[in-house]
């Protein structure tokens, strides 16, 4: 991919990347830094991208790694296994933004991409390197915990 194409496609993608980072990280300034870091890494690694058709999912993957690295230096994240017995009630008591942040990572990834960043089921599955069926299972579980009544359509 040449620089001009990278620029054009990143310009189209950056707002989506920013929304994803903002839900993950909760801070406008840190989300902006995460997007900058992502675009910088993408630009530096441009020659390694073998399938330009997957540019958007590739950049999304970079962004999620950047966000996870930032979160990793904060408190350890909850896992599905460690969810409390009355998890739904715990999450229900939280504001939605906070509840999303407290989801186990594997559920949070899916719900952010699918319901806040506008990714289709196929795009989310490619970005997360998961089968579509797994994405469906995880989004269903996440929506149940969040008590969100949203469709699971592609």
């Amino acid at each position, binding site marked *: 991919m040449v620089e001009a194409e990278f620029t054009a496609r990143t310009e189209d993608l*950056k707002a989506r990347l*920013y929304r994803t980072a*903002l839900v993950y990280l909760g801070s406008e*300034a840190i989300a*902006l830094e995460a997007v900058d870091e992502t675009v910088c890494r993408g630009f530096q690694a441009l020659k390694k991208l073998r399938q330009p058709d997957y540019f958007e999912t590739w950049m999304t993957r970079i962004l999620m790694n950047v966000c996870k690295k930032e979160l990793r230096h904060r408190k350890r994240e909850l896992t599905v296994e460690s969810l409390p017995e009355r998890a739904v009630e715990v999450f229900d*008591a939280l504001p*939605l933004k906070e509840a999303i*942040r407290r989801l186990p990572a594997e559920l949070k990834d899916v719900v952010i991409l699918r319901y806040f960043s506008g990714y289709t089921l196929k795009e989310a599955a490619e970005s997360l390197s998961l089968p579509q069926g797994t994405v469906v299972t995880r989004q269903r579980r996440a929506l149940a915990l969040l008590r969100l*009544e949203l469709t699971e359509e592609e």
Partner: protein
Amino acid sequence: MNRNEEYISLLAELERTPPALEYTVQRAKARTKKSSRLRRCVAAPLSALFAVFLAFMALVNLSPPFALAMSRIPVLKDLAAAVGFSPSLTAAMEHDYVQPIGLEQTDHGVTMRIEHVIVDQKHLNIFYSLHSDVYSYVYVYPMQGVTLSEADGTPLGVGSFTVVTTGTPYTPDGNLQMMPIEFSYVDIPGSLRLACTVADYSDDENPDPPVVASFEFSLDFDPTYTSQGEAVSLEKSFTVDGQNLTVTTVETYPTYLRLNLSYRANAAWLDQIFLYLENEKGERFESKGIWAENHYDTGDVEVQCRLESPFFSESESLTLYVTGVTWLDKKEEPVKIDLVRGIADFLPMGTTVESAIREENGWRLTFSGVKRNATSGYLLFDTDYHDEAGNEYSLGTWEVGDCQDDPERFTVAFSLENYLEDMVYLLPFTAWRVDLENPVEIKVK
């Protein structure tokens, strides 16, 4: 608002993107270009960086004296960017209120260089850089990796200084970074020993970055800078929402202004006070919030507010305008906390139980809440609590800090000492804001 309504509201919030996003690609391309150690970028949040960049260009293009000063000290161009959007520090730089340091050490493949300081009686800003050919990302973690001592090695007293977190572990190699250190209740000594540990953040998979280098620098401050400052006693009282407050003293330093207030807490405590200073030229010096407070058994409370400094403004008169306050009031209905399971039957909006850990003779509780402004956090519960039998207890101390998980939240941690029950009842605070139709005006100068 039900959950789906919250979702729609959050989607609308996410539609708003910051202006700085427009130049994301340009910044990324600029960052990828190799730079020499004399060309440095900025560690401040990039939205603030862009504002600084525009302000800097405006100053260079429109202000010949500023441009002349900048050309005389080229490295200060980088310093101006590292300062970020701080009017007080920018003014300090414009008036050459910068002490060069120029100390450098290398340890285990990491080089730390302290370039300059901006220092006055109460505040120290250290401008430094880190470079390594061995590690991709190295970082001085301010709260855990910095210790200060007197020139003879005597540690400074606990609580006598605070290192403010700034920058991120992913600041590009060699960039100039700023480390602000607050001395709330004592003057800065003429010399200090600064010890820093630096950790390696290169490994994405390691949640506990290892310390790879240690440094100790002896910093001697020019008394021309550390002697600067002026304290004025005012003892002027005013009433807000039926509560009497007194501005006791105003301390003006080159890097910020301290406004000290006192009041007698009745049923409510002061959470925020909205104010600013204005001089005869119409220049405003904005508030940076409440930075410290002392509570006495008598019910008297002393509060320290910070504002941008008018030190370099050559103001002939200064007037304080108080435009509103936020009070914290105790709720009558207690919250029941199940200590074993770490959950509450209900909590005020935005408050969460972070942890409930059994200790030898009691429990250690941590809660988090939503910051009401960029700098303040506060106690979420009253210091008195009781058990299921109605026996009353009282907290000795508590710790308030930033929530590492979320910069818009703060944490409050305290111990229930000699408490062996599995349930506890805490009294939460609620807050309300009062905006004054006619601001209170107090002549300061």
